[in-house]
């Protein structure tokens, strides 16, 4: 209950600042494969909170096209004349695939740097190199689940459309 109240208070504080919404599409390539991630963003001052879906092509890991759930956060480090922005952020996504040998849970955590340019004031294009950790947990076939984790790295581009600005 205490935690809920704390989260509620935090949300109240955050929502009292100027807010904006955004729709964003991120596309990139990393060691898992090629992906596309359409998401919704809530922008509060210099903080961007992201929730959305992430789809990997059926290539190096996945046999089926299941969407993964994605959560992310970006912090705006600097802004140059409202045209050029520097950001740092993190995103985590989770995927599930039922293979004939067992069930695969894949956790994909990435930290990234972002350089964004405003094509028009409400439309930004960003380049985001990232590095992170991928965890593959497989259960169902062997007595104990097996866990494979490795360093992941990649490059992504992001297109973001901001709307609904309010103070």
């Amino acid at each position, binding site marked *: 209950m205490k935690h809920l109240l704390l989260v509620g208070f935090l949300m109240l504080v955050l929502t009292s600042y100027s807010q904006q919404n955004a729709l964003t599409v991120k596309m990139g390539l990393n060691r898992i494969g090629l992906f596309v991630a359409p998401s919704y963003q809530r922008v509060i001052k210099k903080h961007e909170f992201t929730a959305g879906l992430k789809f990997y092509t059926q290539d190096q890991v996945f*046999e089926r096209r299941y969407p993964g759930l994605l959560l992310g956060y970006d912090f705006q480090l600097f802004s140059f004349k409202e045209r050029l922005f520097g950001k740092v952020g993190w995103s985590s996504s989770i995927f599930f695939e039922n293979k004939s040998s067992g069930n695969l849970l894949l956790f994909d955590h990435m930290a990234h740097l972002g350089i964004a340019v405003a094509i028009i004031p409400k439309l930004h294009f960003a380049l985001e190199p990232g590095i992170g950790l991928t965890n593959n947990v497989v259960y169902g076939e062997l007595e104990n689940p097996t866990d494979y984790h490795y360093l992941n790295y990649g490059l992504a581009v992001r297109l973001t459309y901001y709307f609904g600005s309010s103070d």
Partner: protein
Amino acid sequence: MDWRLGLHIILVLLISGACTKGEKKHAAEVYGHAGGGISKGRYIYPPNSAESISYAFDVLNADGVEVDVRLTKDSSMVLFHDSGLELETDGVGCVEQYTLAELKELNYADRYEIITLTEALHLSSERNRSLFLDLKTVAECGIGSISEEWVNKGFEEVEEFLENHPLPPITVNSKSLSVLSWIDGDVFLKSFETENIEVGIEQYQADNIDKLTVRLDWINNEQANLLRDLQIPFCIFGIKTQKEIREAYGLLPTEMISDNVAFTKKIMR
């Protein structure tokens, strides 16, 4: 547009969709190349390592793995692709010049170790998956070809393991027919790797081998059709890109050694 034409198009699309769904796709056994793949820059774990083999089984859902088998100085069978050690380890010289204990001391790809065939058999036995052994019988460093006695001694430990751990059939692959003639046909399936499909067919019909292994660019549609008509099992290797995987699958082989297991399995769905 006339509504009847629209209805006709919808009906045709529905019927064609239903037909495609009912079709059963050709199923080939998919082996991970040296575990999870050997393409530099794409694999997660180094080829022929314990991690790569179990990753291919567990995460990539491979039906089996192809591994490269070499003999040590003291007749142990280890998994390593090249004869020379310099490129991938901190050792110098050739695998065949080292004892198993000495090889175990080496760093493979910085932080991995060279494993024995018996260790790989344990991994496949736990998961009841098959192994495809590419037996390397020619060594560098002036050693030349491996003798029959050396090979037989190496297989003793494997046969001992198989007596206590039942496994799906294990294939032994070689480019040399004389090497295959040393292999116990009651324990292993013999696969002959050849560019010459006609010679392969002759050897199969003479009951000297159980299947053929061919690189994708050694075989054409006609030859693949002939092998299927004669009911000769054949395995295709040398497939890395998505285009090559599609091309290889189009020949309807019985087995495929793939550098991209997940994509290979995907196209069979």
